[in-house]
């Protein structure tokens, strides 16, 4: 964090105070209030009910499933993000610009649409459906489908963080290392990785948060089998529809806590990066 605080001493302190006041007030209203509300409702019936809601086998399973999905998706997206950033930042080739845009497609596509895309491809009536049926492979309404859609939705996160940094840093150091006889792997682990590690972690944190929270796309391909293919965000909806609002908010509070943890990690990383 660089301190650019350049409040002019001559200037009346009224304008900054007013601006800060408005910024804080709006943030309280539309960002903090929803957070506070989730916890208020989750604990509305006390600690015991809260704990009981979280210990319910279906909720535990949803937490477990969501963790598995994140554990599969995030490492793959890290590898993809590094590969994409390396190719785009370190080489010139035809279609580079198109590639950058293609990587960002998932950012602006509604996850619902992503789900529909996968259904049209892997569904029983989809393009690959007959072949999957013949080979007895279950993609949709099972873990593979959930993982694939989550991969789609979170694909850009790591690349987007690492790419600008690698472009800004240039490749002199890496070239020097190559000239000195380092192998490709050595260049990557000794030179590139230390330079991008904070951006990489930052991207990974955002990617994890998004993977854990994905709802729209997964709801199309999950089949909502209670205790089987229900991820945590879907489980929130399910509990809500079970007329168990307190349970729904308890499950939502787990997601909110994860989001907050991700943000704390991210803030810590930024401090490290700035230092």
């Amino acid at each position: 964090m660089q301190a650019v605080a350049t409040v002019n001493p001559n200037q009346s302190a009224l304008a900054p105070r007013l601006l800060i006041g408005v910024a804080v007030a709006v943030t309280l209203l539309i960002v903090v209030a929803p957070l506070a509300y989730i916890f208020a409702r989750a604990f509305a019936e006390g600690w015991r009910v809260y704990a009981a809601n979280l210990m319910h086998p279906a909720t535990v399973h949803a937490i477990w499933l969501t963790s598995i999905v994140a554990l599969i998706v995030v490492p793959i997206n890290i590898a993809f993000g590094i590969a994409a950033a390396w190719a785009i930042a370190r080489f010139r080739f035809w279609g580079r610009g198109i590639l950058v845009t293609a990587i960002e497609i998932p950012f602006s596509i509604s996850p619902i649409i992503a789900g529909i895309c996968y259904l049209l491809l892997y569904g029983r009536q989809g393009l690959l459906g007959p072949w999957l049926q013949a080979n007895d492979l279950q993609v949709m309404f099972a873990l593979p489908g959930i993982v694939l859609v989550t991969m789609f939705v979170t694909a850009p996160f790591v690349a987007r963080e690492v790419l600008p940094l690698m472009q800004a840093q240039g490749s002199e150091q890496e070239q020097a290392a190559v000239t000195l006889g380092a192998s490709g792997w050595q260049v990557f682990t000794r030179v590139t990785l230390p330079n991008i590690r904070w951006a990489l972690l930052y991207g990974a944190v955002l990617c994890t948060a998004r993977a854990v929270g994905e709802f729209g796309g997964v709801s199309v391909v999950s089949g909502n089998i209670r205790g089987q293919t229900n991820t945590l965000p879907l489980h929130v909806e399910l509990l809500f529809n079970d007329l168990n609002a307190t349970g729904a908010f308890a499950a939502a509070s787990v997601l909110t806590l994860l989001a907050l943890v991700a943000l704390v990690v991210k803030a810590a990383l930024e401090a490290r990066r700035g230092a």
Partner: protein
Amino acid sequence: MTAVAAPIRAKRVLPGFTLSLGTTLLYLTVIILIPVLALILKGAEIGPARFWAIVSAPRAVAAFQITLTAAAIATAFNAVYGLLMAWVLVRYDFPGKRLLDALMDIPFALPTAVAGLSLTALFSANGWIGAWLEPQGISVVYTIWGIALAMAFTSVPFVVRTVQPVLEDLDPALDQAARTLGASEVTIFTRVVFPQILPAWLAGCTIAFARSLGEFGAIVFIAGNLPFKTEIAALLAFIRLEEFDYNGAAAIALVLLFFALVLLVVSNRLQAWAARHRGA
């Protein structure tokens, strides 16, 4: 500008071109391009006449209008609020600044469905905020304002996080020079600061707009889902799917996809412009 010049030389020196590009293309193809292609093929199957009939049906047109209007409201709000946040976070020092900064990432990290559930409960007539707004005759939940609210919540970080770094990089000496020359704070902002952050601000707003068009999870809870009033395009695609109308779903999805791609290209152009602006 070594960053731009370096890769040309690098092509001969650095290893891993085939591996990294190969991995990238493989992943992009399997995870993103082929599924999107499946959608486009489905759309092509319909034929232009039927496609046009689906997307120009009154209900579909209304859904597109509602989506665009709400996204425009949300983006207009974020254009101001996001800029204000970026300005406050970069230019002023005050207690709790880091916390406020961190809070700006909540919408990124919080699952949209959870956000939607919570916003709906807050702003409904018997919620914390709704109970206070409703007597003034302001209904948020189940109106287009609710849709805009959910969109604004999920897309505000895009504006803040695009403008913030540019604002941080601005040379304070310029402000100081203008101030010495007797320019008022307002003049300094409009004449000196704003032109420099304009490309980034526009790029941020474009991404926020694109994100708003595609938002679903947060909106289904807070919108009334009334055809012609509060039914958004993504929901209509979802409804068509539930009605076994794959063609209808694919056609509407394709229109949304087209909007998204155009906006993405615009945003990338703007960001390239912003980078040049900064580099110059």
